[in-house]
Structures are given as C-alpha cells and as structure tokens.
C-alpha cells in the first residue's frame, strides 16, 4: 500500500474509534427534560408514545467492549495501513500451515500401505477405498462411476488395454496422460480401397462383411494400418492403437470404422500429475488395476 493510503487508513480508523468513544460519552451524559409521565413527548398515530428510560448499563458496556476489542484486534492483526500487527498473521501463512498439516496427516495414513507391492496393495481394503474415492472425484466423469467407460472413453474394467494393462503401464497412462491419434486414411485409400479395408476390419471381429472386398482389403491393411495396429491387428500399446479383432470398440461400435477412415479419430486422456500427487496417483492406479485383476 502506498504511503498515502497507509496514512489515510490509519488516520480514518483511529479517528473513527475516537469519534465513537466521544459519541458514547456525549450522549450518555446528556440530560433530557424529565416529563411527568416519563415519555419523550413524541406522539404518533394519535396515542402511540415512547418511554424515556435510560439505556441499560450492561448494554452501554457492550459498546465500550467493542471499542476495547477493536484496539486489541488492531494490535494483534493487520488493520492499520501497512502495520502487520504483533502476530504477523497473513491468510497465506495460515493456509500454508493448514496445508502442511494436512499433507503430513495424509502421508501418515498412506504410510501403512503405499510401499506395498501391487499384488498386496490391491488386497488392502483401505487403500482400495481411498483409490475408489479418488477415482470418483477425478475420473468418473469421463470413465463412468463404475469405470465401465462411454463412447470415446475406455472401459477400465475389462482386459482390453490400448496402452497396456500392467500396473506400470497404468501408472504411466495416468501420470503423463495419453494422446491417441488415428489419422484419416480415406484420401490415401480412395473410395474403393476404403470399402475394402473397412470390410476386412469387420471380418476380423466376425461381423457381417463382403468376403471378396475383405480379401482385397487384407493386403491394404498390411500396407496402411499394420504399422500401428500390428500385422495381426491385435493393437499396439506404444501408439495406443486398439486391438481390432475383439469386437470391443473404444468409439462405441463397429459403425465407427468408416468414420475412423474418413475423419480420423483421437482420444485424449489428460495428464494427472499436475492435479494429483504421486501417492494419490499410485492409489488410483492400483484401484484401476484391481478392477480387472482380482
């Protein structure tokens, strides 16, 4: 605060306190002419009158008390311009202290299980309870409260993993996030080629398809798609390319195949390391792992 405001605040605050004190003393000393009927003499609505009794003493003392309180407050806490007050209190410091105490308490309650190997961790009821809560607060809005996913958001309860289902894969996925990108291939394949590859992809999951088109498509799949989805179309954890042979569809159903080829697809699992600390990431990863590894 600039010097000008520093002094303005001090002067106005002190002047107010002095003025209140003066007002209190001045009005409490003032004698009103006593009337015989002990009223102020005001009459409203023909016959409504006001008694003129002095204020109760204890009430008056409350006013004095507020003034004493304000002086004590201004001594202890910041209130007079830039003066910090004897306690040097700030809201940021108060927050820091509370946050550190909370972190310590959290770490203490995690200490019992956070370093357990994963196979034991998933058997620890408390750990799984905490993991589930973290999941509900941070992940459920995309993956569903039962973790069964939605169109574009993978099911985390099955054995089908695009980025790997080992505990370490899951930990990496959650910590750093994932970006699955499937470019549009229709321009390169042409209309006929797109039909052929689509038929071949349908055949892989045993869905109705035109066999002669699919036969043509197989070779094109090897040229255009195998680099990411693998020559056997079983997917690749490195690129997050899904397994195309299991009739499990990240983007809803096999209806997506044409869209995938004409428009491309992408999925973005946002990084969590800026949102959750390491311990909480480990617990939620363990919870996710436990859903398909009982």
């Amino acid at each position, binding site marked *: 605060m600039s010097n000008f405001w520093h002094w*303005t605040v001090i002067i106005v605050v002190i002047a107010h306190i002095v003025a209140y004190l003066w007002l209190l003393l001045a009005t409490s000393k003032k004698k009103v002419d006593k009337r015989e009927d002990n009223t102020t003499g005001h009459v409203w609505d023909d016959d409504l009158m006001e008694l003129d009794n002095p204020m109760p003493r204890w009430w008056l003392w409350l006013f004095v008390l507020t003034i004493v309180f304000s002086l004590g407050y201004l001594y202890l806490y910041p209130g007079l311009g830039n003066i910090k007050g004897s306690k040097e209190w700030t809201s940021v410091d108060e927050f820091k202290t*509370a946050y550190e105490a909370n972190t310590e308490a959290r770490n203490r309650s995690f200490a019992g299980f956070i370093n357990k190997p994963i196979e034991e961790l998933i058997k620890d009821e408390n750990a799984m309870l905490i993991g589930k809560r973290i999941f509900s607060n941070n992940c459920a809005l995309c993956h569903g409260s039962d973790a069964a996913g939605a169109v574009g958001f993978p099911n985390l309860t099955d054995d089908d993993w695009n980025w790997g289902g080992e505990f370490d894969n899951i930990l990496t996925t959650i910590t750093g996030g994932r970006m699955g990108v499937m470019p549009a291939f229709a321009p390169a394949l042409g209309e006929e080629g797109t039909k052929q590859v689509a038929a071949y992809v349908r055949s892989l999951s045993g869905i109705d398809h035109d066999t002669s088109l699919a036969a043509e498509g197989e070779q094109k799949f090897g040229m255009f798609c195998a680099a990411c989805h693998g020559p056997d179309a079983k997917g690749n954890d490195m690129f997050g390319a899904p397994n195309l042979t299991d009739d499990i569809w990240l983007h809803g159903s096999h209806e997506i195949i044409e869209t995938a080829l004409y428009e491309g697809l992408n999925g*973005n699992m946002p990084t969590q390391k800026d949102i959750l600390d390491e311990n909480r990431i480990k617990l939620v990863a363990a919870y996710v792992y436990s859903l398909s590894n009982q």
Partner: protein
Amino acid sequence: MSKHEKIEKNIGLMGVMVAVVISFAGIIEIAPLMSQASVVEPVPGLEPRNPLELAGQNVYVSEGCYNCHSQQVRPFVDETLRYGHYSVAGESVYDRPFQWGSKRTGPDLARVGGRYSNEWHEIHLMDPRSVVPTSNMPGYPWLADTPVDIEQTVESMKVLKMLGHPYSDDDIANAAASLTDKTQLDALVAYLQDLGTAMPRSYQ
C-alpha cells in the same frame, strides 16, 4: 426542533448521512486495493484472452453459467486439494466482468483449463447426462450450430482495449479472420480450456 429530531423526521437526510457513514468503510477497504500491485497487475504469463476465448467468455456470460459456477478457488485445504492452487487477484485482471461468483450448484471452474479434453467438454455441454448421468446441468445443444458473433467480439476487444487490455491494433484487425467458421461451442470450450492456466494447477 432538536437536531436529532430533524434527522429522524427527514428520511432523505437520514439516508444521505447513513450512506456517508457506510462509505467510510468502503473507502478504507476498497480504495487502497486499486493502487496495490498484487491486485491490479497481471500474474506473470497471463495474456489477455484471444478473440476465440473472448467470444467464449461472452457466451459464458450470456448463457448465465455463473449462476451455477464460481471461478474462485478459496485458500482452504479442501478446496485446493479438489480444484488446485487457490486463486489470486492478478489472475482475473483481464476478466471484465469478473466471474468470481459465490454460487456453486456445479463445481468451481477457476482451474478447469486443461483438466479435461476438448471432446469431453463438447459432449458434456451438448448433453451433460451422457457423461455424468446424475448431472442437473442443462444441456446447451444449440451452441454447436450457432456461429460466434464476430462483430460483437471485435467490439468487445475495442472496448477492453480502452480499459487497458494490451490488445494491439493488429490483434483487433486479425480478430475477425480467426473467428470465421467458429461456433459458440468452439469458443466456449476454448475459453474453458484457458481458465486458470497462468498459474501452477496444483498446490503441492
């Protein structure tokens, strides 16, 4: 007539005197802040909103999202654990009107930028219940087929520039081009993805 009676019987005079007394508190609590750097200077790295984000802010205000969402993480442990680093004043110097708010039917949005993907925001704004089955947030499906109001956005930039937002003449001249073919949904998502990103997301 005593002085006291004069005031008591003249409601206009009493009103004026009450206002004068109360304004002392206002002056002492508010006026010094207007010259305090931590309140009026942007935090390092804060940029004024680009045209698309600004259009999004205008949609946010006109659709009344603030009726259910605040944009202020208060400095309490539970809030910072849930939403991230508490908000500081220097983050909202380019918010006119500011969106701090106090009504939380839905979660605070001060640090929602980057937290979810664009796809999720689009699905959620069109039909919240398709991703959060128990949500009572209304859907805003028309945003996807309503183009952004380019003229209004450019006018907004001019007014904000007068109020001190550091837009260059080039920024304003190029704004219209960067908004062609954008829908209100694109703008709103861009705005949401920008919220709170000038500060570290979490307090750790």
